[in-house]
């Protein structure tokens, strides 16, 4: 299996949802920790060539968070939300708002499932309230910025 095709994206044509599925070579406890420990999440969550700056992070049921993404020391986007439920090593439910679109909120449910010893499947389901909002999430790839891909897409859109 090609390493490039390990992440599966499902955008339901009838529902404003996006599902992202990915398997990891680690037990659920460890994957879960990488998701909720602020020192660990900053190492992987932000887009390429950016720094994730955490302003608030209380990863417990009923807690909240806010973080900003910086490039070359400049803030390019900020996000906040609640930890609706933190169920150790199995389920994480969060709200998620991009501050640039403050009326939009996504309900994200991450499930961590041990598919075999030492291997974990993470399913992240994002639910928003309109199809347009969902499409904006998919189109957000445009802003979060891998420049080389941009150019290819631009060329395609010009046709």
């Amino acid at each position, binding site marked *: 299996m090609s*390493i*490039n095709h*390990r*992440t*599966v*994206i499902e*955008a339901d*044509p*009838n529902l404003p949802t*996006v599902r*992202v599925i*990915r398997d*990891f*070579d*680690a*037990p659920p406890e*460890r*994957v879960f*920790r*990488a998701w909720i420990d602020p020192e*660990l999440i900053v*190492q*992987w*969550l932000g*887009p*390429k060539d950016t720094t994730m700056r955490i302003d608030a992070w209380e990863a417990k049921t009923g807690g909240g968070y806010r973080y900003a993404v910086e490039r070359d020391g400049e803030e390019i986007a900020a996000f906040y939300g609640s930890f609706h439920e933190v169920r150790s090593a199995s389920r994480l439910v969060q709200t998620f708002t991009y501050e640039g679109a403050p009326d939009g909120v996504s309900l994200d449910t991450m499930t961590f499932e041990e598919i075999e*010893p*030492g291997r974990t499947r993470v399913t992240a389901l994002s639910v928003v309230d309109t*199809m*347009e909002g*969902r*499409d*904006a*999430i*998919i*189109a*957000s*790839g*445009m802003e*979060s910025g*891998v420049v080389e*891909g941009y150019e290819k*897409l631009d060329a*395609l*859109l010009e*046709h």
Partner: protein
Amino acid sequence: MSEDRLSRVFAALADPTRRDMVARLAVGDATVGQLAHPYQMSMQAISKHLKVLEDAGLVTRSRDAQRRPCHLEAEVFDLMTKWIERYRQQAEERFSRLDAVLAAMADEEPAAKTKRKGAAS
């Protein structure tokens, strides 16, 4: 503008009848009458669906021929597939970094805690 276009494509495909029409046009061009045939719907309803598909750029109709057959613009699908693929690649990039973080965490965990078979104790 491109985001609008993407939204129109997704919205157009949100309806099961329109998805079915698209699937049938993928096989070959068809007239409105041919398209309407399998459905228990008025021609007016079918025309409405077609209009949505046309507005999204998914379907075109020739202006000259009297039958004005409907034609599926397959490249729009390529476009949508590309957007989703782009989104997927970005997710994969993130998760590759997470793979590295997880591997580093495994190294830090004391040997007694790792349950891997054959691990030196």
